[in-house]
């Protein structure tokens, strides 16, 4: 299996520090969700975990070794990434897009092995996109497009998937669709999934492990029941709420009130 | 702000006098004063100042002010800090029509060639307008600039082709291509000067509306600005200013791009101060460029368009390096 962890991670943009000596180990084979208010550094953390950003200090450890010191192709065989609002090259079909995910497994000699073909087909079936395979990506609806991106990550066939707000800009039905897909990938293939989500209640329902960030540090982590409490939500979001038990799923359900005066 | 504008105006006055003094033959300020107010018919210096130097000084002043103003308006209109008559192909369009007329028609009346410059500027402006406004949300800085660059390449390719076909025309057209404020007598350019002045003054009452437009089209509509009409008038002003500039002085690059940025540094984003400052800075810049152009490599002269590009391009590149947000 593949483990990923951050060790004393410090980094930011220009001169502004975003993450401050942050250490974190993410549980293997589980769904972890990063939550926090805007600008708390959760996207930055995800990008650092995906080696998109070079830490100022500290490091990201993938399978016991510094991720920045491993060849990027080797990393890409262990870890796939779905950025926020990715842009598809013009004119590319769904199948071509999904095939791109096979890139780290290919070489100049072997550019379309039987395994490549099989994995691409599997990814298309898995995401229920087989009938759209020859459609151009820009002609898909928002939910289908998001599934196409996930299919690309699935074809990449990595034990670890990182996703930055995979449900943003989707309506509720499509949000559920994407999250169900990710949950089944976790259940059936044992993939470790790390994602940023904005919706606390959906996060509680799908996460095994929640990491709450505040001001570039980890404020709390653990199961949804441990992290999402009235007191904690107040600290993380500066927001008054009532946390009740979800009557169907028995995960915490957060009912927000107006933002407190004067923060 | 008024104080700053005052300083800029005095700077312009100094550059104006300097421009009358400078050249292969330097003339003192007192002599300049006499030449302007009580000239003697026989004095060579007086004659020199009142004819060639005064003409090129006035041309540089008006052209510089026009280009600075046109650049500022374009940057507001496209909401793109890199928009300018040069980069978006408007100068090239005007130039192309001029070359076309000169190579096809030979010795044409001045008014016709000037009208041609306006026509070319309008043509290019229409093309850029279409590209920029087609999908406002997606136009993006890169698309607009690439379209402008390609449009420029297009007009230049045509101009070059014409010049290769008609080699006699080349010599008479070269000054348009390189830019020059001294190629034509005052008697030929004064109508163009007048036109530019009118256009410059016409910008004044629009500043308030531009301020609102700069906040975004939908906001401007919400604030009761008639956006379509304002945009139309603005484009017309740009065409007049840039077309007249090319008709008077040929191809002068980068003034329309850099000057508004300098002016904005000095006055802030309020169009009521920013645009007049852009005009003043533009005029001063072109006067100084012209002084440098005619004194640097005596007895020869650097074409002024070359001069502004040599100074303006590095400034442009510096500007881009400082824009941290150009990281896609």
């Amino acid at each position, binding site marked *: 299996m593949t483990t990923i962890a951050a060790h004393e991670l410090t980094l930011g943009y220009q001169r502004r520090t975003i993450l401050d000596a942050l250490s974190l180990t993410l549980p293997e084979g589980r769904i972890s969700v990063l939550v926090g208010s805007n600008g708390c550094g959760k996207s930055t953390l995800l990008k650092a975990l995906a080696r998109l950003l070079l830490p100022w200090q500290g490091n990201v450890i993938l399978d016991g070794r510094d991720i920045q010191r491993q060849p990027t192709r080797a990393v890409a065989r262990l870890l796939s990434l779905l950025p926020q609002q990715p842009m598809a090259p013009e004119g590319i079909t769904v199948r071509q897009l999904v095939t791109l995910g096979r890139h780290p497994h290919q070489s100049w000699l072997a550019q379309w092995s039987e395994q490549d073909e099989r994995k691409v087909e599997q990814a298309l079936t898995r995401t229920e996109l087989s009938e759209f395979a020859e459609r151009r990506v820009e002609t898909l609806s928002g939910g289908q497009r998001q599934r196409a991106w996930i299919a690309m990550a699935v074809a990449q066939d990595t034990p670890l998937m990182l996703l930055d707000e995979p449900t943003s800009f989707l309506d509720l039905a499509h949000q559920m669709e994407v999250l169900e897909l990710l949950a089944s990938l976790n259940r059936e293939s044992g993939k470790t999934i790390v994602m940023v989500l904005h919706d606390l209640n959906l996060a509680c329902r799908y996460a095994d492990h929640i990491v709450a960030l505040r001001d570039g540090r980890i404020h709390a982590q653990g199961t949804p029941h441990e992290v999402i409490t009235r007191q904690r939500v107040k600290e993380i979001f500066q927001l008054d709420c009532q946390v009740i038990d979800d009557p169907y799923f028995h995960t915490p359900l957060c009912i927000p009130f107006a933002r407190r005066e004067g923060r | 702000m008024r104080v700053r504008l005052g300083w800029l105006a005095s700077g312009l006055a100094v550059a104006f006098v300097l421009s009358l003094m400078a050249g292969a033959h330097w003339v003192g300020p007192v002599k300049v004063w006499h030449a302007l107010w009580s000239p003697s018919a026989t004095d060579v210096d007086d004659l020199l100042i009142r004819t060639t130097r005064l003409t090129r000084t006035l041309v540089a002043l008006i052209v510089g002010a026009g280009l600075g103003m046109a650049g500022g308006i374009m940057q507001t209109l496209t909401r793109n800090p890199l928009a300018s008559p040069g980069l978006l192909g408007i100068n090239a369009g005007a130039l192309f029509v001029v070359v076309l007329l000169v190579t096809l028609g030979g010795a044409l009346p001045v008014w016709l060639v000037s009208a041609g410059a306006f026509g070319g500027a309008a043509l290019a402006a229409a093309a850029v307008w279409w590209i920029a406004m087609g999908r406002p949300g997606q136009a993006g800085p890169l698309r607009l600039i690439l379209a402008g660059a390609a449009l420029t390449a297009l007009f230049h390719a045509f101009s070059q082709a014409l010049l290769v076909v008609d080699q006699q025309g*080349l010599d008479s057209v070269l000054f348009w291509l390189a830019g020059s404020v001294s190629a034509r007598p005052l008697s030929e350019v004064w109508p163009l000067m007048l036109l530019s002045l009118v256009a410059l003054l016409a910008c004044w009452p629009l500043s308030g509306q531009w301020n609102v437009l700069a906040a975004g089209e939908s906001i401007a509509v919400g604030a009761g600005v008639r956006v379509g009409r304002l945009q139309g008038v603005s484009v017309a002003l740009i065409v007049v200013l840039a077309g007249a500039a090319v008709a008077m002085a040929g191809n002068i690059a980068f003034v329309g791009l850099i000057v508004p940025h300098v002016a904005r540094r000095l006055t802030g984003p309020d169009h009521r101060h920013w645009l007049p400052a852009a005009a003043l800075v533009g005029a001063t810049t072109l006067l100084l460029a012209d002084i440098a152009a005619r004194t640097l490599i005596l007895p020869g002269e650097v074409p002024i368009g070359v001069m502004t590009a040599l100074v303006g391009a590095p400034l442009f590149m510096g500007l881009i390096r400082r824009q941290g947000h150009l990281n896609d």
Partner: protein
Amino acid sequence: MIETGALRIGGFSRVFVWRPWRRVAIASLLLGLAIGACLSLGKVPLAPLELAAALSAPGSDLGLIVWQLRLPRTLLGAMAGGALALSGWLLQQVVRNPLASPDTLGVTGGASAAAVGYLAFLAGTFGSAWLPLAAASGSLTAVGLVYALSWQQGVTPLRLVLMGIGLSAMLAAVTMFMLASSPLSTTLSAYVWLTGSVYGGNWTEVSQLASWFVSALLVMVPLTRFALLAPLDDALAVGIGVRVQLLRGALTLLAAGLAGIAVAWGGAIAFVGLVAPHLARRLVRGPGAAQIVMAGVIGSAMVVLADLLGRTLFLPLDLPAGIFVAAVGAPFFLGLLIRQVR
């Protein structure tokens, strides 16, 4: 519906999509016809049979015309056009915008400044034999500068384009200054060069250009797989294990090299690098090897046909090919801009 096949021999595997290659084959056939037309048309028009006879007898009068005048010139045009088109295709991938072209990155500007400088100051002493070298080194220097100036913890496509435009403008000013201050005869020959002409091409030039062109192609083949990934988001590309900055640098350099050699031997032919890749993209949907070959074929055909028009349409005048490329390319380009808006 889609005819794909996979070729797998041991560790070697490729996917083939056959359909686009049919169009490529047709285009290549048309290119062949165009080259044939180039060889048979001119001051002395030849019927197909006469052409065959002339080709088989290089020593005869007609043979000399075909072998020593028309063939080298045609080959020069074909290679220059192909190289420009490939360069344009690569740059449009790197910049992720179909409006990019070798001109935007300063290739043409650098080559023009160097070539005009050479014609103005050095041609008198050294003759024109070194002109291609001057032009090629000019273009490479310019692109190198653009790249270096754009580098701030990596290069972004936008900065690359803007720096290219800035440097091009500056180089154009230098070129203009040299043109304006040199004697009219120099200016005239410089203008012919600037417009782009393969006039007077000979076998020495053909062999020089061919060796460079083939070397560039050899570099391009292994890079193709990565070139197809260049339009991806940086984040996505890193995600699938692409070294984005290394790739961007390599592709830019290759594109500069291709355009540089084309401009060196064919002059500053505009629009091929812009229009040919775009046409190829229209004819062959979806990025892939077929599209690249298509771009090259179209580029070659454009220059070859433009040169044919240039030397036959206004006999006895021999006009630079660049004029006709611009005459066809410019309206097409306008159409492209308008379509992009829609």
